[in-house]
C-alpha cells in the first residue's frame, strides 16, 4: 500500500511536469525563435505588485528595461512606465500539442516584450526557449528510451527464450555494443550523416542514434528474466499442456519482464535526455534556431557568457525535477518488483 501511494505520487509529479512541457506553446509568451535585437542578454525582469512609490497595485506589472546609452548589455529599469501583466492573452501563433493551431497564451505583457527569465544573445525570450527546448529534449529522451526498450525486449527475449547458439550470438553482439565508447560512436555516426538536415530530420536522427546505441543493458536484463521465467513451474506446466511458444511468451513470460522494463525505461529517459543535451551542446543535435536544452546550454561554452549572464544556466536547472521524478519512479518500480516477488515466493512456500 505504501509503495502504491509513493508510485502514485511520483506519477503525479511526472504527469504535472510533462503536462507543463506539453503545453509549452500555451505557457510560453513568445515564439522561441523570434529575435528582439534591441535587447540582447537582458536580465530577468522582476514582477512587481508594489510600485516605486510604494503603492500596492491590483494587477502585477513589470518595469520595462532599457539599454543604457553606449553599452551592450547594461540595462536599467524605467520606473516611469508600468506595463501590466495579463493572463490568457492572444499572441504569437503556435500549434498546441503539435497540431492544434492556437494563439492563446497563458500570459502576456502590455506594450513590451517581457522577459521573465531574461533573454539570450539575440534577444530571444529565455522562458519560451526553455519550455520549447525541454519539450524537444524530453521527447527525444522518451522516444529514445521507448526504442531502446523495444529493441532490448526483442533481442533479450529471443536470446533468453531460445537459448543455445542464438543466445551466444546475440549476447556477444550485446557485449560489443556495451563495450563501445558510445559518445564517440555518436560523433562518428553523426559525421557520416548528411550535413544540412532540417530540425525534424535531425531530431529523428538523434532519437535513432541514441536508441540504437543504448539497447545493450535492457537486452541483458530481459534475457536474465526470461531465462528464469521459462524454467518456472507454471510455464513448464503450460508447455506440458501444449502451449505454443507465442502463447507462452505473451501470456507468461512477457508479464514477468514488465517490472524490469519499466524500471529500465524510467532510468533510461533521463540518461537519454542527457545524451541529447550532450549532442546538441557539441553542435551535433537539433540545429539553430530551434531550441533544445543542449542547444541552450551551448551558449555557456563562451567564457564571457559563463561569467556575465547567470540566467543562461537555467536550462541546466530545469532538468533537475524531471530527473528526480524519473529516478524516484524507477526506484519505486524496482522496490515494487522486488516486493511482488517476495510476496509470491512466500505464497509459494505455504503448504
Amino acid at each position, binding site marked *: 500500500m505504501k509503495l502504491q501511494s509513493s508510485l502514485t505520487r511520483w506519477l503525479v509529479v511526472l504527469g504535472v511536469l510533462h503536462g507543463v512541457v506539453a503545453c509549452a506553446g500555451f505557457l510560453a509568451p513568445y515564439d522561441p525563435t523570434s529575435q528582439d*535585437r534591441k535587447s540582447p542578454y537582458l536580465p530577468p525582469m522582476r514582477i512587481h505588485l508594489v510600485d516605486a512609490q510604494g503603492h500596492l497595485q491590483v494587477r502585477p506589472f513589470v518595469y520595462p528595461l532599457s539599454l543604457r546609452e553606449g553599452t551592450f548589455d547594461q540595462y536599467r529599469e524605467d520606473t516611469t512606465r508600468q506595463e501590466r501583466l495579463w493572463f490568457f492573452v492572444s499572441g504569437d*501563433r503556435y500549434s498546441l500539442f503539435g497540431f492544434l493551431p492556437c494563439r492563446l497564451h497563458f500570459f502576456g505583457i502590455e506594450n513590451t516584450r517581457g522577459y521573465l527569465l531574461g533573454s539570450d544573445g*539575440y534577444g530571444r525570450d529565455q522562458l519560451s526557449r526553455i519550455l520549447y527546448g525541454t519539450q524537444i529534449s524530453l521527447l527525444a529522451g522518451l522516444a529514445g528510451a521507448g526504442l531502446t526498450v523495444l529493441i532490448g525486449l526483442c533481442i533479450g527475449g529471443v536470446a533468453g527464450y531460445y537459448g543455445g547458439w542464438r543466445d551466444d550470438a546475440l549476447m556477444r553482439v550485446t557485449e560489443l555494443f556495451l563495450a563501445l565508447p558510445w559518445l564517440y560512436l555518436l560523433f562518428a555516426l553523426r559525421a557520416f550523416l548528411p*550535413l*544540412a538536415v*532540417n530540425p525534424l530530420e535531425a531530431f529523428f536522427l538523434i532519437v535513432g542514434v541514441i536508441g540504437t546505441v543504448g539497447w545493450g543493458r535492457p537486452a541483458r536484463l530481459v534475457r536474465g528474466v526470461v531465462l528464469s521465467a521459462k524454467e518456472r513451474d507454471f510455464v513448464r506446466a503450460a508447455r506440458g499442456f501444449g502451449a505454443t511458444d507465442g502463447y507462452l511468451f505473451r501470456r507468461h513470460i512477457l508479464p514477468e519482464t514488465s517490472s524490469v522494463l519499466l524500471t529500465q525505461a524510467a532510468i533510461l529517459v533521463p540518461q537519454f535526455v542527457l545524451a541529447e543535451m550532450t549532442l546538441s551542446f557539441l553542435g551535433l543535435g537539433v*540545429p539553430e*534556431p530551434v531550441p533544445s536544452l543542449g542547444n541552450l546550454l551551448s551558449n555557456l561554452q563562451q*567564457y*564571457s557568457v559563463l561569467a556575465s549572464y547567470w540566467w543562461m544556466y537555467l536550462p541546466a536547472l530545469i532538468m533537475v525535477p524531471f530527473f528526480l521524478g524519473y529516478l524516484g519512479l524507477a526506484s519505486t518500480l524496482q522496490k515494487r518488483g522486488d516486493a511482488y516477488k517476495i510476496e509470491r515466493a512466500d505464497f509459494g512456500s505455504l503448504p
Partner: protein
Amino acid sequence: MRNKRGKFPYRRMLSSLLLPLVFCLLTFFFYPTIASSQQENENEELLVLPGEMGRSGGRLIVSLRAEPKTLNPVTSTDAPSRDVIGAMQADLVHINRATQLTEPALARSWKVSADGLQYTLKLRTGIKFSDGHPMDADDVLFTFRVYLDEKVHATQRDFLIVGGKPISVRKLDAHTLVFQLTKPYGAGERLFDGFYILPRHLLEQPYREGKFDQAGTLVTAASAWAGLGPFRLKEYIAGQRLVLERNPYYWRADLKGNRLPYLDEIVFLFVPSADAQVLRFQSGEADVISRLSAENYAVLSRQQRAYTMVDAGPGLEYNFLFFNLNDSIEKTSPEMLGKQKWFRSVKFRQAVSAAVDREAIVRLVYQGRGAPLWGPVTPGNRRWVNASIAHPARSLDRARALLKEAGFSWSNGPSGDSALIDPDGKAVDFSLLTSSSNADRAKMATLVQDDLKQLGMHVQVVPMEFRSLIDRVMQTKEYDACLLGLVSFDADPTADMNVWLSSGGTHLWNPSEAHPATPWEAEIDRLMERQLAAPGYEERKKLYDRLQEILAEEQPMIFLASPDILVGAKTVIGNFHPSVLEPYVLWNVEQLFFRNGPENDRR
C-alpha cells in the same frame, strides 16, 4: 618604508652603501667594452626611428594562442609563427603599420626606373646578423633564390611572380641590387615587405643539400640561427615558452642614437585558449594582449586596473556571405541547378543584401566594436576605401520589390508564415555553411538566417569544421551558400589579387575560372590588371574605386561586417601604438619599453 625585521637595521645601511659601489664597479668594467663596440661599427648606418625615448631593460611577456610551428620565415604559414618571426627578422623595405606607407629598412634607399620595371636598392652598410656575421648583397641574392625555388614551397612565392614571370635579382656591388620585373607592379616597393633576409652563412648548406625545410625549426640551437630583427632566439621549452633576447647588432636606433630594442627579452608563452589568455593578462602574468573578442574586451575594460585597453578601429578583416556560383561542378544535381538559378540572379543577391541587418550584426556579434560593411575595403583601410559607395539601410520592402522584379512570389504556408516561391514554383530554401570554431560567424549566420526568414527564405545554418568547409568550397563545391571572412595581409589592393581575379584560387564564389564567367568578372579582371600596372596612387585608386562599385552592384559577396582590432597593454609599457595591420601590438616591438614604475622595479 619601515624595516619589518627591525632587528638588523644595519643591513639596510650596508646595502645602501654597497649598491652604488657595485654599480660603480660595473660601469668601470663594462665601459671599455661598450666603447670598443661603438668603435668597431663606425661605418655602420643605423636607422633612427622617431618615437618616445625609452628606457632599456625589462622582459615583455606575450601569450600566443598556439606554439609556433617553425622559426623559418620561408616555410611559416601560421599566425603564431609569424608573430615570433616578425620579432626576429627584417626586410628590405618595410610597411609602417601605423602610417600604412613604406619606409626604408635594410635598404637605405631605392630607385624605380622610368618604365617601372627596375628597382635599384641600396643596402645599409655595416649591418650584421644577430650572430655577428655581416650582411651583404649575397645574402639578399640567396634569400630571393630560396623564396623563388619551387622545391622550397615558400608561401609568399606567388607575390614574386609579377605578370606571370618571376622577378630576377642582380647584384651590382656588395651593397647594391637590381630587381627586374617583366611588368610594372602597382604596389611598387610594398612588394619587399615580409621577405625576410636570410642568413646565407647558416642556410646555404642545408639548402644545397635539400634540407632547407629542416632548418630553423623550433629544435634549432640558438647559436645555429640568426636574423636581422630586433631579437634573437634564446631558448625554447616545448609546450611552455619561447624566449627571445635582445639582438645586440640591431640596426635601428632611437632619436638619441641609442641602439634599439629597449627590451632585454621577450617571452612568448603558449596559452591555448582565448579565455586563458585573458586571465593571464588580468592577473598581470602577460604584458600585452591582442586579438581580443569584444566580450573579453568589455570584461577587461570594465575592471580596468593597471592596463590600457585600446580599440584600434576596424582592421582589414571582412566577413561576407557568398553563394555557390560555380559552373564547373562535375556532377551537378538538378536540385543544385535550380538553386543556382536563384543565386545567379543579381536581383536575388541584391535582395539578400538589402535584407541583412548589418547594424544588428555589429551590435550583437561585436558588441558595437566593429563596422558594418558594404564592400571589401574596411574603414580601417583609409587610403583605399571608396567613400562614395552607398550604405543603404536595411530595407525589407526594397528586398521584396527586388525579388518581385526577379519573378519571385510568396505563398502562405500552413502555419501562417509566407514562403518565398521562385518563378518555377519551387520554395526557396538553402543551407548556409559556417565554421564551427568561429563563434562570431556562427552568430552572424543565425542573424542572417532570421533576416532572410522575414523574406520567406528558409535557410539552414550548417556549422562545419573549418578544414572540411574549405574543402567543400574549394574542391568538391558541394554547398549552397557560405559565410566566411578574409583578412588582407596588406592595405594595398594587390593583397587581394587572388580574391578578385576570376582565375584566382581564392575567388571564392567560383574559384580558378578558366575564363571570366560574366562580363562584370571580366571587367574586374581588367581593373585588377590595370591597377597593377598603373603608375601612381591616384590612378590606381580610381581603378580600385570602380572595382568596389562593381562589387556593390553585382554582390557576388554580400559584405557584412568588420571587427575592430582590440588590444591591451600594461600602462607601464611605453610606445604602445597598436595598429590595424598585423602584428597589431608587436609591430614596433623594438621601441616598446617599460616606464619607470613600481611594476618595472620589481622586474
